[in-house]
């Protein structure tokens, strides 16, 4: 599953991920406006904030989907800015998307197998897969899709697609895993399972950064929480520290029309 490389030491003394002065600008609009963020090895870091705070954009910038206007993103000491998307993945950063995207014409098994094969050379790629490899089976079991291996991914429900995406990224053994709202639309029980999975992944040496709105979920599974608002980091700390923070309450309560934000605010306040 998560590769043993997870234990590989980051550059001496440095954190796993170090973001400094990051700015992303869309047509003059500063979606990420000078973010500094440090994520240490083996953390389960939650990133919260109201809609439009720039959370997804931050993850997009880390994974190369958008090009920052300024700033640096260092992963295990190496600069990620200017690298292409697939190179960043190969460096050990995996991600899922807010709206899950899977390959609908392939089976569940094939989806995961494609993901797991990303380091193979061309001669191996040109061979036919003979059944599922242990890594693929393990990833499917971890998300509970092992019974659906032969189903077309296009027939899966929204929640199952989310699981499949997680399995695809898991089997790649990333050292940093970025999950964008992984439990959105899941039932309480499913959330619990996802949370336990995240904890387990972290225990096996993968650092996880989760974007989430559900404060209940955050309280249960976060080691540290970072709050974003209008493209900036508002505050950072343990769950209780963040919950006590006045500015955080203001940010959430200050946008009453924002349903999800308001819901989260109520929970923050509670």
């Amino acid at each position, binding site marked *: 599953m998560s590769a043993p490389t997870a234990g590989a030491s980051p550059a001496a003394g440095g954190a796993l991920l170090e973001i400094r002065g990051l700015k992303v600008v*869309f*047509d003059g609009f500063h979606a990420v406006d000078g973010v500094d963020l440090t994520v240490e090895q083996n953390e389960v870091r939650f990133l919260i904030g109201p809609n439009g705070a720039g959370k997804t954009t931050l993850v997009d910038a880390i994974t190369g*989907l958008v090009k920052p206007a300024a700033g640096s993103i260092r992963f295990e000491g190496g600069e990620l800015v200017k690298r292409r998307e697939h190179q960043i993945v190969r460096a050990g950063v995996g991600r899922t*998307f807010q709206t899950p995207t899977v390959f609908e014409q392939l089976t569940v098994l094939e989806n995961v197998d494609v993901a797991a094969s990303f380091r193979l050379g061309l001669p191996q790629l040109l061979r036919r897969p003979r059944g599922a490899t242990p890594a693929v089976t393990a990833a499917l079991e971890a998300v509970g899709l092992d019974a659906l291996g032969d189903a077309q991914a296009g027939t899966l429900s929204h929640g199952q697609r989310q699981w499949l995406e997680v399995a695809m990224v898991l089997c790649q053994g990333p050292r940093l895993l970025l999950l964008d709202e992984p439990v959105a639309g899941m039932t309480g029980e499913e959330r619990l399972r996802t949370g336990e999975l995240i904890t387990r992944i972290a225990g096996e040496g993968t650092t996880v950064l989760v974007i989430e709105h559900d404060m209940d979920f955050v309280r249960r599974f976060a080691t540290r929480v970072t709050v974003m608002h209008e493209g900036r980091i508002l505050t950072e700390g343990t769950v209780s520290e963040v919950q006590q923070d006045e500015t955080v309450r203001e940010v959430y309560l200050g946008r009453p029309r924002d349903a999800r934000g308001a819901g989260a605010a109520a929970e923050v306040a509670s």
Partner: protein
Amino acid sequence: MEVFLSQLFIGLSVASMLLLVALGLTFTFGQMNVINMAHGEFVMAGAYTTYVLQTSVFGTGAVTLAFGLSLPLAFLVGGVLGLILEFTLIRRLHGRPLDTLLVTWGVSLMLQQLARDIFGAPNVQVKAPSFLEGGITVAGVSMPYTRLFIIGLVVVALLAIWFYLSKLPAGRRMRAVVQNRDLAAASGVRTPHVDRLTFFIGSGLAGVAGVAVTLLGSIGPTLGTNYIIDAFLVVIVGGLGQLRGAIVAAIALGLANAYLEYWTDASLAKAAVFALIVVFLQFRPQGLVVTRRRGLA
């Protein structure tokens, strides 16, 4: 210097013809993401409209009258053909741009054969009206009136489009759909209507281009294929649905062709222009003028 100027004129006149064909495509491709391969056959239909008016309706005695009437009539012929195509096929293929391309190619094959059956396979000649005979020579460059007329026609067409898009409510709805279809639909614009109108206008412009083609030489059933690819290249280089981009791209391609043709020969010039386009796409893969969209598109 004289060579420079004469190639400049040739380039501009090639560009004007290209742009006339590409204008309609800019609309249909830009707004509806439809690659209409039968667009070239709408040009052909416009050309034959002129031919029919001149030979069968008015006779050779009233060439000027026939030519003058052929402009609006060819617009109508092209437009109606476009409407029929939109109504019968293109609408059913919504969201399948590559399939649309292939289906409209099939339509174009059938239209070519239809023209062959009606007008015969050999090319036919359309007489230019007498006021377009001859030309003027400025600074050693001889400029036939027919070429000048086509340049003028493009300018008029551009002005008309500009007026339509910026001054008329229908044009503003059209711009709204080009920029953001979903948003336009959500704010009450009836996008199917707008699409139909766009297709009518775009195809009508092809008909008008067909009238211009008759001034450049004899016409035949396959004349559309000569223009369609180059016109699509104009759209690609210009940027999807960008009028400004299409104008600049048409002029650039026309000039590049004219000068390269002078330095090498006609056949190598074509290959060189294609190479230039590929190089250009390395710097501006989305064309000259780009509109942004977000997300994993």
